[in-house]
């Protein structure tokens, strides 16, 4: 008997099969990922996800009999009261009390769930999204420096000596200048000694001796390592951009915002978060919701609490300014904001909002996206004709040099395209 420990064998042999499977089930997985992303919080969108996909697209067909029709016999265990000739009510779904015979695959496998790794999930989630090249103005204000390798130099501190490079130079120099090898010298010495012992004639010994001297001299003249061989690793200090960003989620939660609208907003915020997360080392999120007054809250409250009241948009902007001043000095942080609203605002507040946005918020923001969410079936007024109060107000502020983008979103389907459009536009304009 042999006993072999295979535990150290490479794990995950099935990885290649898994990739083939994902490629195969792409369409369903993409759909499942999009669906799944709606159900989770913004910050944990980054973890892997269990997705449920229909087995339909990854069915493995085979010839097998239909589950209905014809005459079938089954032998089953556990008879309690039946006698020959009894009749039994056909159980629901037909097929009788039969077991798992028939197809090995197919029936009964309508769908199944499996876990995508974080990367697989994100890849699919962001797949058709061209991550735009966002404005980098503030990133340039670097605060710290870092050392990076930058080739070799002929001078430096001994600690930075690059031995490999130095030896390589030395070797090529020795080859090029034909420095005699140690073996050659030894061989020559041997020859000379043999000649001397054998008592060859003096002339020949002399010739050998001179030859040896020449070689030795040559090897002295061409050193093993010459200062010109020496190389040091060179480092350069490069400015390191500040890699932190904060994202403000502003949302109107007055009574007119339905769950559907909040869902749209959430998905938009989610995309924005993912996008920032991939670009920056750390991303903070600040949730601010407002009715006639604004408050910073946690994610749960932001999306799911029910509160109602009047609508005063400027309070949210005011709150955002306050938070920025307190915690996110805008020369150190990249500030992004997305505002979702159904567009209602108290008319008396419009002017104030516009001023605040133009003079305070936009100058400190990298990007400010205004998403106007509408009810799915509301194809009418706000979509086609009448612009909302807030839309009109913001439109006045909008200008090519201000990082403000505005879009309307009505259904989940539109979130992705709108997001892409928003960021792609900026790229085109830059």
């Amino acid at each position, binding site marked *: *008997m*042999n*006993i*072999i*420990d*295979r*535990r150290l*064998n490479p*794990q*995950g*042999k*099935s990885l290649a*099969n*898994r990739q*083939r*499977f*994902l*490629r*195969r*089930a792409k369409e369903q997985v993409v759909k499942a990922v999009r669906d799944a992303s709606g159900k989770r919080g913004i910050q944990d969108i980054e973890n892997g996800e269990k997705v449920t996909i229909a087995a339909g697209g*990854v069915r*493995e*067909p*085979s*010839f*097998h*009999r*239909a589950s209905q*029709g*014809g*005459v*079938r*016999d*089954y*032998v*089953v*265990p*556990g*008879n*309690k009261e*039946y*006698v*020959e*000739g*009894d*009749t*039994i*009510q*056909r159980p629901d779904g037909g*097929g*009788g*009390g039969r*077991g*798992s*015979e028939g*197809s090995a695959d*197919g029936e009964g496998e309508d769908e*199944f769930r*499996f*876990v995508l790794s974080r990367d697989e999930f994100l890849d699919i989630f962001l797949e058709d999204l061209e991550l735009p090249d966002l404005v980098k103005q503030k990133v340039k204000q670097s605060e710290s420096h870092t050392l990076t390798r930058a080739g070799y130099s002929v001078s430096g501190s001994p600690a930075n000596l690059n031995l490999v490079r130095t030896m390589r130079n030395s070797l090529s120099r020795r080859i090029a200048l034909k420095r005699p090898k140690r073996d050659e010298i030894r061989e020559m010495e041997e020859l000379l000694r043999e000649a001397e012992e054998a008592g060859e004639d003096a002339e020949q010994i002399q010739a050998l001796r001179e030859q040896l001297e020449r070689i030795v001299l040559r090897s002295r003249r061409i050193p093993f390592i010459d200062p010109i061989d020496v190389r040091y690793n060179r480092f350069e200090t490069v400015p390191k951009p500040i890699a932190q960003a904060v994202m403000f989620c502003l949302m109107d939660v007055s009574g007119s915002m339905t769950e559907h609208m909040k869902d749209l907003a959430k998905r938009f915020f989610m995309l924005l978060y993912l996008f920032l997360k991939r670009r920056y080392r750390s991303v903070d999120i600040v949730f601010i919701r407002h009715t006639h007054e604004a408050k910073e809250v946690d994610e749960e409250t932001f999306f799911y609490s029910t509160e109602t009241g009047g609508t005063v948009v400027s309070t949210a902007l005011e709150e955002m300014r306050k938070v920025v001043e307190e915690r996110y000095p805008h020369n150190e942080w990249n500030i992004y904001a997305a505002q979702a609203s159904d567009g209602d605002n108290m008319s008396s507040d419009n002017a104030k909002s516009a001023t605040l946005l133009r003079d305070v918020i936009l100058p400190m923001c990298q990007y400010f996206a205004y998403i106007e969410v509408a009810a799915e079936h509301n194809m009418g007024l706000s979509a086609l004709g009448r612009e909302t109060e807030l839309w009109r107000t913001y439109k006045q502020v909008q200008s090519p040099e201000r990082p403000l983008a505005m879009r309307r979103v009505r259904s989940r389907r539109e979130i992705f395209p709108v997001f892409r459009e928003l960021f792609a536009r900026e790229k085109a304009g830059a």
Partner: protein
Amino acid sequence: MTAVITRPEALLYDGVEWDYDKIKRVYDAVEHIALKEMGLDVYPNQIEVITAEQMLDAYSSIGMPLMYKHWSFGKHFARDEMMYRKGYRGLAYEIVINSSPCISYIMEENTMTMQTLVIAHAAFGHNHFFKNNQLFQQWTDAEGILDYLEFAKTYITHCEERYGHAAVERVLDAAHALMSQGVHKYPKKRSDLRTEQRRERERQEYQDQTFNDLWRTVPKTAAGPRPAKSVSERKKLLGLPEENILYFLEKKAPRLEHWQREILRIVRHISQYFYPQKQTKVMNEGCATYVHYQIMSRLHETGQISEGAFLEFLHSHTSVVFQPEFDDKRFSGINPYALGFAMMQDIARIAETPTDEDRQWFPDLAGRGDGMAAVREAWANFRDESFVLQYLSPQLMRKLKLFSVRDDAEDPYLLVDHIHNERGYRDIRKKLARQYDLGHLEPDIQIVDVDLAGDRKLILQHRVTNGVLLDEGDAKAVLRHIANLWGYEVQLIEVSAISEAILKEHAVTAPSGIGVV
């Protein structure tokens, strides 16, 4: 087995932790019982310790340690993993491979008692069955299989590099769909996988050596209409009818390339290798379960394992041989472990302590004494269908309370047509045996005709028994796969086996493009 209790020996192990020393000791003790007392005959054993994840890996690729890559294995992995993580299903404690040496996997998570059980079950039970059952002897090549799989894996990887993933996947998908139609059911000659591998290499070399690009430029003769051969002549030339669809396509499909044929051949060989396993589920599991039960009991009897260990064993043993009744929520058909184990015990009982009824039913077997020998004989010579037909006793039918139900789609009710009584025994036994007859379980589909000089339409026939037609959606999908390989139109006709009347026709048009596209 003789019930002489030898002097209690020291415990082989204590506690749940396992280590190599203990396993070695246990193996030796188990081997002694298996070979000396039970008279088993096994291939050399190789026991490999793996992790749970590796176990999942292994059984998502149909239990083989090395396998070519295909998405369906990924799918099964995803499903198994999900079931496992959710606790719907435990992992198999072991996987055993019909090869020589016989490889048994044990999981590192198992307790020492489980390892002992697995060694008894897999390394001796299954191993003995693989080596001695005539189906396995006839159909499988235990020495060659691992090398062949290695070859298959490399070959398919090579094809992927050369022709692209998608092209290879299309062939494999089609071949997998036809896997059950890819076996020779009657032995022609023993397939020797090593020869198979060598022949493929030779074919390849020959092609490489004789390749001459000039042939491409030779103008094709305008083939005039050749005299139409008679139908019977044509069928004879093609070897029709042919039930091994994969074989037919591999040999005769006009548009396949060499490597595509080779992939079909690989899948066909693997399918053939598993064919005996499909026919002997009850016997194979019954054999292994019977063997582990005997061995564990014996270890306990002789004081080599502790009471606690024996209880732990009994706990997993009983859950393995548990048979829910038909009206139980957990019922999902007859558990091959339960039926197999019960039948093995029954055979030994009939041989050793028969009742009058047994004498009447099994005149040759009843009272002949050596139960172990009788069981070994059964293991060697039968497959599930014939085994049930031969050995299912009235007593066992009563114990399991078997009854048969007729489900006629025409009737609003199911009919209980036989129960476990004097009049029903033979019928129930016959019906249960049929339930294990692959020839009956799998639809009878054959290639019946093709006109190579004409439109090259491939015609398949399904002989319908009891009026049960094929599942239409799946049939269509498989036909599409066949059409992809064949390159031309494919038609499937379902005819009644009795009246020859045509019940249904399915047709799939020729794929566009050439060959498998």
